[in-house]
């Protein structure tokens, strides 16, 4: 009769789980979070009072107008930021894909990694220092960070595209610039577009919070209202943020369905 060997007790799994649990408990201990106090009756009562101050939200037409401008500003910041980023990303992707030699590839690769590793909020703080408060700082912050992200993605697209097309143009005497325009660009154009649109979607979300450090958009309004303890107004802004994010999600899902249908 066949017998299956007894299931091995996975020592590694057990130890890993033990380590994870230790880390989790350690985290709470290290932070000295007064968990019981937070979830105590008194604390929850405070919380509910605070939450109560948010409702009813301020929907006066004056404030709605302000929010409307904020939404448009947020969309504009994300759009221009992504656009500028795409432009520079295409330029940077060429050396990053090795088209100008391996030294340039390393240097530009390092630059792109630096640009995208620094979080957008840090860039925003830096840009506010440089060009002052306002939406332009937000545009620059998004442009810098997104250029790093897109630059790497575009470079990968270039590396993955077949070289025969560029080669045949080279053999008929075309200059490097022409090879790029007529050979490379048509091959990667659809990927450039879809990556950029995807990033724009994410940047809209980002643009709403860059305002916290003064870079314009809905975030700046929220920060301002909360600093003045205008909770009712803050609530409206938060609801607007929510609706914006949900709306963008829905529209992009719909567009994606349409796009995959028509580009076939």
């Amino acid at each position, binding site marked *: 009769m066949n017998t299956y060997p007894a299931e091995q007790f996975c020592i590694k799994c057990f130890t890993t789980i033990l380590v994870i649990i230790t880390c989790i408990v350690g985290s709470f201990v290290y932070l000295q979070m007064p968990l019981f106090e937070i979830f105590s009756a008194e604390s929850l009562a405070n919380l509910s009072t605070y939450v109560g101050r948010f409702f009813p939200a301020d929907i006066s037409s004056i404030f709605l107008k302000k929010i409307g401008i904020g939404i448009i500003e947020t969309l504009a910041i994300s759009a221009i930021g992504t656009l500028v980023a795409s432009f520079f990303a295409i330029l940077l992707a060429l050396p990053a894909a090795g088209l100008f030699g391996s030294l340039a590839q390393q240097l530009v690769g390092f630059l792109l990694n630096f640009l995208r590793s620094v979080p957008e909020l840090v860039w925003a703080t830096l840009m506010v220092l440089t060009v002052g408060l306002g939406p332009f700082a937000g545009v620059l912050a998004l442009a810098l960070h997104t250029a790093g992200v897109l630059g790497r993605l575009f470079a990968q697209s270039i590396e993955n595209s077949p070289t*025969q*097309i560029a*080669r*045949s*143009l*080279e*053999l*008929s*005497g*075309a*200059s490097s*610039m*022409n090879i790029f*325009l*007529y*050979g490379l660009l*048509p*091959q990667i*154009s*659809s990927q450039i577009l879809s990556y950029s649109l995807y990033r724009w979607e994410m940047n809209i979300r980002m643009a709403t919070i860059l305002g916290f450090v003064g870079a314009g958009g809905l975030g700046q309004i929220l920060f301002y209202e909360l600093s003045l303890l205008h909770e009712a107004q803050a609530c409206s802004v938060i609801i607007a943020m929510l609706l914006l994010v949900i709306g963008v999600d829905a529209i992009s899902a719909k567009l994606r369905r349409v796009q995959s249908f028509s580009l076939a």
Partner: protein
Amino acid sequence: MGFEFKQVDFCYGLDQPTLKNLSLKFQVGETIAIIGPSGSGKTSLLHLLGTSLRPSRGIVSLFGKDPWQLSALHLQKMRSSIGLIHQSPPIPLRQRVITAILAGRLGQWPFWKSLASLIYPIDIQGPAELLEKLGLTGRLFDRCDQLSGGQLQRVSVARTLYQGAQLILADEPVSAMDPVLADLTIQILKEDALQRQATFIASLHAVDIALRWFPRIIGLRDGAVFFDLRAEDVTQNLLRELYASEAGSIPTQNNQQILGL
């Protein structure tokens, strides 16, 4: 001022050299077909002529000069008078036919022209006439991914015709076409070359087309010249020996495998 192979070796990898001690001479304005079994080195020979590959030993002389001794700028200029028709059309599929054809003159146009052409095609008449000759009327503004393999190959031919090169090299240019179309295409290429006194060298799989259209036939086998004769001097025996490795059957355009591009 012709073209010459002077004792050329070419090794693709580290094994057997693809071309061994090749010596050939071509005059300006000649029309030549290169035939031989697969793996005989036809493509490498053409690509050496097209400066796509560098000889491992020996000299390939084009227009009387060694291309690999030229400066980058002069090499670029020389290449603009060499038109290489590849076996599989190197055209970005999302590009439109007209842009693909106009790309043939990129080596001859100043930069502003090529930039402007992307926005609005600089020359619509020229490519349109070429397409009409090749039987693709009305497809000028279609996207290349809407064409069949044979149609795409004809667009590739149209691009080289538009280029107006002095040395036209065709690497199996009609492999994906039916016999009638293949005849038409070779005829157009030959007439264009004769009209401009350009040199036309084609590597062909189909022997019947080679014999029909080309006055000079070079048979290649195992990287060396098996025979270099006028078309009328090519006998059945020679052909059978040339294609001995392919189970003795001599390929014609009819029993071609249509490449599903």
